[in-house]
Every structure is written in C-alpha cells, then in structure tokens.
C-alpha cells in the first residue's frame, strides 16, 4: 500500500504570552510570569498508508490532539510548527490557507473531541451536514435542495439513522451526545475523505454507544476504504480497530507496533505501565506524573517514573529504534 500521509520531524511549540497573563489578573504577582516555551510535540515522525488505521495513544496532555490539529492546520496563531506533513507528497505546512481550505473536509477530515461543542447550536443538523457541499462547491444551483438533501439523508442512514429526514430539522441541543457524535461522523465523511482523523471519538460515551461507534467506524472503512488516524485513550477500542498503534509520552513517540504485539508483549516500560493501569490488570497506576512540556527532564523523558532506569537513561536521549516493523525509544529494550 502507498503512503498517504508522512509526518517528518514535526515540532509544535507554544509561546506563552506573558502580557496576556498579566492582563488577565492584574492583582496577582506580575514578576512570577516567565516567557515559557511549551514544546507539545518534539521531532515526531510517522506515516499512514492508504486504507490503514493508525492509533495514537498516551496520557492526557502528551500531544496527541496537537498532532491532529497540526495536520488540519487548525493550531492557534501563537503556535510554532516546524518539520513537514506530507499528504500524497505535498507538504501541507507550505500550502496557503486557501489551498488548505480545499483540502479540509474533502481530502482530510476530522471528528472533533466534543460533539456538543463541535456542532453549531443555532443551526439545524440538516444545515450543518450540507455545509461540506456548500464549501466545496458540490452543491450546484440546479441540483440545490433535493440532491443535497438526499446525500445528507444517505450519510445519516450510513451512520445508523433509519429515518434520517426526521433528524434534518433537529438542533444539537435536542439530541444526546451519542446522536451528536454520529452527526459529526456523517458530516466528516460526507465527501469521502482519503484520511479521517477521529480525536477521542469514544470519550464520555457509555459501553453500548462505544460498540455502536466501533461498528460505524468499521463499516465506514469497509465502504469508503479511507485511512483512519484514531486518537484515543480507550485502549480496548484501539485494540479492536487499529492496524498499528503508536504510543506517545511527553510529546514524542516511544513505541510503535501492531496491536497484538503491543498489547501482548509491550516493550517500553511506559507502555507496560499503561497496560497495567487497565481494569483487567487491577488499575495499577504508574508512579509520578508526566513532566511539564516547558521543561522536560534530560535524557529519557520517562526516566523519573521508570523502575528499570540506568545512569545512561538520565543523561542521553534515546532514539526511536526500528526493527521488524515496530519501533521503541528505550536503551534497555531489546
């Protein structure tokens, strides 16, 4: 299979705005604020092949969503992005905003984390689902109305609404989180993008809704044959859907492997700790917490929490070593 998306040495940093913080709270001590640079993603490289599902997992704040937003070029203006994000050989970071707008929704689409916040509360579901056609000029004047409506209805049917016309006039606040999540999936896949990014799609959903979502994503992949970048902290969900899993810690990838090898014989001490935290393994926590991204520790970023660390781990930064289709960033892993 051909490579669809290739990320090379991606660095995303945010400069904290000192004056903004001071203005926020004039009564507090102004001298304490420093101009800190938070490097949310450090020298990150990975690729996604056509039709492949790659999952990104890791602790809250490790940079998973930042990667997704960097691909979509939706990061805030105070961010600094370096490296390359190549989609079918074209570097997205070098595109103009106008060119990028043509890509979004059509070639690469995203299902955002919080369905209630991602949908506009003042527009009906039907209006919002027809938006991709309006933006990408696929709603021709002659066809306007009925054709678009039938396409929207078709998309709603695909995500499990047996009577789609009923929902076109609904507003997001009338619907449950699970329904809104399915509307978002329908909107994101409306133009059949080659790459779909799903950012924590199962967050906050109960078990029944998660299994429904899992079936919807599987069906979509079968029908549309698109690639999927799945960002999730639900490891069971990831195991069932992913072709490969990349584990992130403190802004970098520390292990990449197929799901069976990663879940059955994890190599990196952090991956092992993550799996021990699962309910079936007794909720055993990893001691300590992730380092601040404004000041990560020298050497291996996981060493302050690692039970098997050696002197070298505190001094040198390990590279991601590749072997047999998997990779690990640890001096002590075979």
């Amino acid at each position: 299979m051909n490579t669809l998306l290739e990320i090379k040495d991606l660095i995303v940093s945010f400069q904290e705005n000192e004056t903004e913080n001071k203005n926020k709270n004039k009564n507090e001590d102004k001298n304490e604020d420093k101009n800190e640079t938070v490097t949310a993603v450090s020298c990150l490289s990975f690729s996604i092949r056509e039709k492949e599902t790659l999952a990104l997992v890791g602790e809250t704040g490790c940079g998973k969503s930042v990667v997704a937003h960097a691909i979509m070029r939706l990061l805030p203006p105070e961010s600094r992005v370096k490296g390359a994000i190549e989609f079918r050989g074209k570097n997205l970071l070098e595109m103009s905003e106008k060119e990028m707008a043509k890509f979004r929704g059509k070639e690469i689409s995203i299902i955002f984390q919080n369905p209630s916040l991602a949908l506009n509360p003042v527009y009906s579901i039907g209006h919002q689902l027809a938006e991709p056609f309006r933006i990408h000029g696929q709603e021709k004047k002659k066809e306007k109305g009925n054709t678009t409506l039938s396409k929207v209805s078709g998309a709603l049917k695909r995500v499990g609404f047996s009577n789609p016309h009923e929902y076109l006039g609904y507003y997001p606040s009338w619907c449950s989180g699970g329904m809104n999540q399915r509307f978002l999936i329908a909107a994101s896949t409306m133009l059949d993008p080659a790459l779909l990014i799903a950012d924590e799609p199962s967050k906050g959903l109960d078990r029944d809704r998660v299994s429904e979502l899992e079936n919807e994503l599987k069906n979509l992949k079968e029908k549309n044959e698109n690639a999927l970048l799945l960002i999730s902290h639900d490891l069971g969900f990831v195991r069932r859907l992913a072709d490969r899993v990349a584990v992130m810690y403190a802004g970098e990838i520390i292990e990449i492997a197929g799901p069976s090898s990663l879940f059955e014989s994890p190599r990196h001490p952090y991956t092992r700790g993550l799996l021990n935290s699962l309910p079936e393994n007794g909720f055993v926590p990893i001691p300590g917490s992730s380092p601040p991204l404004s000041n990560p520790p020298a050497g291996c970023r996981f060493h302050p929490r690692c039970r098997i660390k050696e002197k070298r781990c505190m001094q040198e930064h390990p590279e991601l070593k590749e072997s047999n289709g998997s990779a690990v960033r640890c001096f002590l892993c075979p």
Partner: protein
Amino acid sequence: MSLKAENISKRYGSGLLREGKCIFREVSFELEPGKTFGLMGPSGEGKSTLGRIIAGLESPTDGAVLLNGNPLSGMKKAEYAAFRHRVQMMFQDPTDSFNPRKRIEHSISEVLKLLNNQETKRLQITKEMLKTIGLPEEVLARYPAQLSGGQLQRLALGRILLLEPEYIVLDEPTSALDVSVQAQILHLLKKVQEEQGIGYLLISHDEAVIRFMSERIGMLKKGKLDMIRT
C-alpha cells in the same frame, strides 16, 4: 451522619397542567460513612441528576433527601449551608472546576477564606492538602491550562477535602482521564476514604470502575434503580 435518598422521583417540564417527562421514580438508597455506593447505568438515564439531588444542588419532584432523618427541603438557610459543606460534589471535567483566568493558588484560597482562615494558616493547610493529593507546591503558581487533566482532578479533590466533607458525590470523576491517570485517581480516592472515613456516591458508566471502588452497587435504567450488589 446518615444521608439517605427516600422515594426520590424526578420529572422535567412538569407544571400545573402538564405531567412532564419522568426521568426516574421512587429511587431509594443510603450512603454510609467510609463506604462507596456505586451508581451505574447508560447515558441519559438521570445518574448525574440523581447525584445533584443528593448533593442538594437540585430538588426532587417527589420524595426527600434525608440528613440524619431531617429532610433537606425543610432545612433553614444556615442548616442548608452546613449541609453543603458536609456533602460535596466532584465533577467529570476538572478543567470546568477551576477559573481559567486565576492561578490555582487563588482558587484554593477562595475556599479557605470562606472558612475564615488566617493567611499564614491558609498556606500551611494548602501545603498539607497538596501532600495528601501528591502534588508539588509549584502547581499553586500555575493557571489551570498549564496543568494536566489528572493534576486538575487531584486539585479538585484537594479543594473539596479542605471543607472536611462527610460525603462526596463523584460524578464520572475519571471518564475524562486516560487509563493510567484514572488508576492514580481511583487509588487516591480509596486512600482518602480510608484516612478520613468519607462516604462516596460514585457515578460512572464504567462497570469496571464501579466494581473496583464500591461496596454496594445500583443500576439506574429505564427510570428504576435495581440493586446489583448489596
């Protein structure tokens, strides 16, 4: 202190001429000091509404919340204020629990000012609280956006503990967190319960979390509460 829900029903949209939609009816259970009652069930069945009613943040349509046998609805203002100190609520998303424009120190000291603590004593109490929840003092100088979800959820618990509550309603306390941080928070909640004898009402749609934490478990489904572990 006993905290009891007695035949609680909740309807939305009811009025003089309309009966409204019944979310749940005649739900009864009791919370015990130092123990956890786990409340599970699918989304939209009214688990959070029931939690808010127990915490005194919402009124039931029928039935009563009884504190030592006294109904919450009949309490005087001062009694109700004392109830709100003793029964606290911890919410799902820790980022919503803190003012984004204020440093953590400010959000913590607000509670201590409310308790009329002197400034020197406030610092000492805050340090002790941070020790309990396992966070360094440097977090006090940070804004909520500069901390992780796990750190904020620990601080949300720490701030609640300053009020020395007897019961805490935990509304999906780990569902916004990843598995490793979830495990840390669950162990912290257990440790705090053992040390301080606090009774929990734990609301979650995650059966594994409920089973790990709770002595007694109820399932809220189709408007009814079925006890599945007593």
